[in-house]
Every structure is written in C-alpha cells, then in structure tokens.
C-alpha cells in the first residue's frame, strides 16, 4: 500500500468526484423514476395510440449503447444548437437510458396484476384513474420493488460513463489520479470502495423493503 502521501494530494478531488457521482445518481433516479412509471402506465393502461410510439421510443433508447446516447447528447446536440454543460448532458443521457430500462421493469410488474382487477373496477363504475391509483398500482408496486432497486444500482454504476463526457465524477477523478501517479490500483480501489458504499446503501434499502413487503404480505394473506 503506497503511503498516504501519494493519495493525499488527490483526496479532495476524489471526494468532490464522489459528491458529483452522488448528485448524478440522485438526479438520475429522481427524474427517471416518474418518467419510467408514466411510460409504463401509458403503455399498459393508456390509449392505444400512445402505446406504439412509446414502444418505439423505449426500444430505440434501450437497444443503443449507453455511451452512444451520452455522446449524442454531449457531442451531437450542439450541432442542432443545443449546448449543454457536461453534468446536464450526462444527466439527460442517463435519465433517458435509465427511464427506458426502468419502464420495462415496471411494465412487467403492472402486467403481472391480473386483468380482471381492472375489469372488476370498471364494472363497479370506478373512474379509470381511481382504478389505477387504488386497485392497480398498490398491487403492482410490491412486484416492482426488487427489479426497481436492482435497476437503481445498475444506474448508479452507469453514472461512471459520465466521465467520458468530461464530468469530473468519481471515475474521472480516480483515472486522472492513476494516470498522473502511475498508481492505478490504489485509486481504482478507492473509487471502488466509494461505489461499493453507495450501492451498498441501495442494496440495504432493497433488503429492508423486501423484508417489509414479505411481512405485510404475510399479514394480508394470513
């Protein structure tokens, strides 16, 4: 292990990189989640004319490499006169990617709720929005949580791609320090430790949420 003296000069940059990664993760998840839910609901319960364009959009984004999407936002959009700061460009690309994947996870959970539930709600005369809010979503949410949390972890890891469009995130700072000091393993190890800590929190939340769901389902079905 090299001396602290090797790490010390880069420590503030690593910390600020970590903070950028946290912010990027936070905004990406915060924005992608409602967009994904809206897409999933529209495709599963919305009017037929909305389903096809959304399916095309989601698949176009989903089937592209994330890096191509990020490059497109950061390098491609200025050609159309849309110039964005690296952080904003990366956020937009990551939100688009994340929302596309996430909407597929959520769609699966919504589709897993038996169709008869909405038929029964309709037969009772419940308004559609009421049926979605009170009947469909409460049954779909427990099914959504495990894939959602897994997706959230994948998205947090995916923020490291932002380093490729000049965002000074954790990955960018760690690689920069490695290439200056020729001590890659120590800085990559530190970066890895930070990512582990961040995703560890998400994994912990997932475990707690799943335990909570198991318990509440047991009381409901007991």
């Amino acid at each position, binding site marked *: 292990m090299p001396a602290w003296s090797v790490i010390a000069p880069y420590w503030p940059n690593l910390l600020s990189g970590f903070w950028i990664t946290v912010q990027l993760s936070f905004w990406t998840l915060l924005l992608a989640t409602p967009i994904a839910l809206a897409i999933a609901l529209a495709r599963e319960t919305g009017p037929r004319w909305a389903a096809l364009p959304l399916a095309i959009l989601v698949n176009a984004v989903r089937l592209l490499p994330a890096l191509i999407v990020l490059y497109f936002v950061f390098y491609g959009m200025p050609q159309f006169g849309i110039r964005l700061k690296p952080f904003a460009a990366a956020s937009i690309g990551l939100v688009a990617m994340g929302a596309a994947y996430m909407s597929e996870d959520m769609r699966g959970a919504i589709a897993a709720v*038996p169709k*008869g*539930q909405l*038929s*029964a*709600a*309709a*037969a*009772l*005369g*419940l*308004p*559609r929005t*009421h049926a979605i809010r*009170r*009947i469909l979503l*409460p*049954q779909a949410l427990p099914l959504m949580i495990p894939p959602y949390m897994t997706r959230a972890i994948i998205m947090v890891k995916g923020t490291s791609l932002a380093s490729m469009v000049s965002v000074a995130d954790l990955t960018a700072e760690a690689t920069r320090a490695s290439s200056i000091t020729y001590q890659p393993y120590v800085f990559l190890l530190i970066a890895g430790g930070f990512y582990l800590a961040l995703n560890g929190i998400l994994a912990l939340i997932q475990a707690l949420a799943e335990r909570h769901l198991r318990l509440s389902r047991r009381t*409901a*079905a*007991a």
Partner: protein
Amino acid sequence: MTAPIVSVKSVTRRYGSFMALDDVSLDVMPGEVVAIIGASGSGKSTLLRTINHLDPPDEGQVWIDGRLMGVAEGARGPRRLSERDLRRQRSEVGMVFQHFHLFPHFTVLQNLIEAPMAVRGLSRPAATERAEGLLAEVGLEGRGGAFPAELSGGQQQRVAIARALAMQPKVMLFDEPTSALDPELVGEVLRVMKRLAEGGMTMLVVTHEMDFAEEAADRVVFFDKGRIVETGPPAQLLRSPSEPRTQAFLQRLLRKDR
C-alpha cells in the same frame, strides 16, 4: 305491458375475424331471471360484457332501464358518452365474475365500500352500514375485517356478489359464477343467488349449472356460435328442446354428469 329493463338489439361483436356475437337480440323484463347456457366460446360471456359495455358492441344497441348504453342524448342529437359517464352508467349494472376478482389488498369491507364511496359519494359510515347489511345477507356477517385470501372460494364469490349489490344495481350479470369453485362450495353461492332472484332482482346468469337454471330461472337461452339458437321456459328448453343443436348440447352435458 311493462317495458324490458334490459334490451339487447341486434348486437354484433367481432374479435378480429371471429364473430363472438352475431346479431343477438334479447329482452329481459324487470325481475326476470334468465339463464344463458351453451358451449364455451359460444359468446355467452361476451354477451354479458357487451351489456355493461366492458366490451362495447361493434353494431347494435343495449338499453338498460330505458337508457341507451354508451350514448348521451345531447341537445344536438345523440353522441358517444365520455368514459367517465359511461362508467357511471355501468355502475347501475352489477357484475359477478367467474374468478371473483376481489381486490386482494383490501379487506372484505373495503371491497364493499370502495365504489359506493368513490362513485356514489356515500360517506364511509353510510357505505359501511350498507356493506354490513349485505354481508349478513350473503351469510358472511362480521367477516368485514378479513382479507379475500383468508376466505374460501365460495365465501369470496359471495363477497363479490355483495360488492356488486353494494352499488344497488338495477340488473345483475353473473358470468359462470360457480365454475371456478370446488363442487362442495357451489351450493352456498347458488343459494345466495336464488335468494336474490326471489327478492325480485333482474338477473342474467351464464351458467353450466342446469339445476340452477331449472329451479331459479324464468327463462333459458341457448347460445351457439354467437347466436341465440333457442329460448324458452326451463322445463321446456331443458326437457324437450326443439332445436337439434340444443338437444346435442344437453345430451353432452348429461353424459358428462354420469
């Protein structure tokens, strides 16, 4: 002569090229109990879903209590009813499904009060009082706190009947209400339905229970390939059907019973 409370007029419903309903007409009088029989895939269930517009007909009309389903009478002539108004209209028709479709995340009581509160604007105490009365009627007094998964199939179906009744519908549609039940649970559901029939409720019942059709129905309708083949009082239609197709269907059923 009184007017029919349900009037199906030349209704056609296709799924792709498949004719689920082919020019079907049927009038049901207030208080009448009509049993609809026929092979699976013959269009019986589609007829029920067409009546309450869960599956709106491609052609033809459905009238409930003198009002045309799915159509609003505007100042400038009839127009298509908005989704919201259609739902309101639909709430006058109760429906019971083969697989109950109770809301599993709600208690029995919440299943019964959700729609009366949201659609009819009943207060919680008023809806609860009505629900408790209905639970007693279907023999489930005091089970309001249970979750559907804690009940047997027969109990769940009785809750589903109570849930539909909580909207005080003018007509009740039953789509094979006992087909998903263990044989020993069929009786308790049929008893509730018979009591409802005796109470004067108008009922359309898609069923394979010939005993129920014989004992509780005023009229039996035999369906085949999306068309009404024959209709008549149970004693006549079930004992001495005039159409060869009805005879063949009933003979197949009898053989299965033995």
